[in-house]
């Protein structure tokens, strides 16, 4: 999995690429999210258009990041989820927990 970090004003946009299955990659994403919180960046968008699939380890990191950000007064919003990830979010009912947007632009605009 690869992570590209961009910013739009005070919003961090993380573009993920590959598969999120646990192992060393999952640690990298977990650390990245906590690095953002520690630096005071509390509005985060995760762009999932290039993520083929994720398992419960990936979901766990996203939900952990969401909880930590909301506790600090921020949020983590998802954009452009693929069909397979949408299915996993639906199975676990996390589609009711995350705010999910059709595009990065919509997700960024939702913070305004």
């Amino acid at each position, binding site marked *: 999995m690869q992570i590209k970090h961009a910013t739009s004003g005070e919003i961090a946009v993380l573009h993920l690429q590959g598969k999120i*299955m646990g192992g*060393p990659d999952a640690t990298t994403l977990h650390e990245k999210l906590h690095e953002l919180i520690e630096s005071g960046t509390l509005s985060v968008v995760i762009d999932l258009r290039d993520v083929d*699939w994720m398992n*419960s380890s990936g*979901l766990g990191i996203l939900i952990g990041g*969401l909880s930590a950000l909301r506790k600090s007064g921020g949020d983590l919003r998802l954009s452009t989820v693929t069909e397979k990830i949408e299915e*996993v979010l639906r*199975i676990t*009912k996390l589609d009711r*927990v995350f705010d999910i947007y059709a595009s990065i632009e919509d997700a960024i605009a939702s913070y305004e």
Partner: protein
Amino acid sequence: MKKVIEKRYRSRINSVVKAERLTDKVARQCDLSEGTRADLCIAVTEAVNNAILHGNNLEADKYVRLKFDCSDSSIRIVVIDEGDGFDVEAVADPLSPENITKPNGRGLLILESLMDEVRVKPSSQGTRVEMVLKKR
């Protein structure tokens, strides 16, 4: 056509990546569609992660066995760890309101949703997870 592939992994965090590579290779050899291939990879990485982290507790001298049994109509997958087993009935419902935002506990739910059959047999010698994915 019947094909059996078996591999043993050390209880290391990056073994799941190796298991995923093998799973993707097996799925391609078995001519699974892209969506079904992803289902298989998600399920196997769930089971292998659980075996490494919760079954074997990352103990270096314990192994995880992964076996694929491919036929014309289905793939049977077996994942066995060397841990102490666990109480399946005691696994908390990840969909209940008090658990929905917890970071873990969704693995079994995902396995049961994506696979056609799932059987979990814990014992004091380790846990055996057997799954069947029908070709479609």
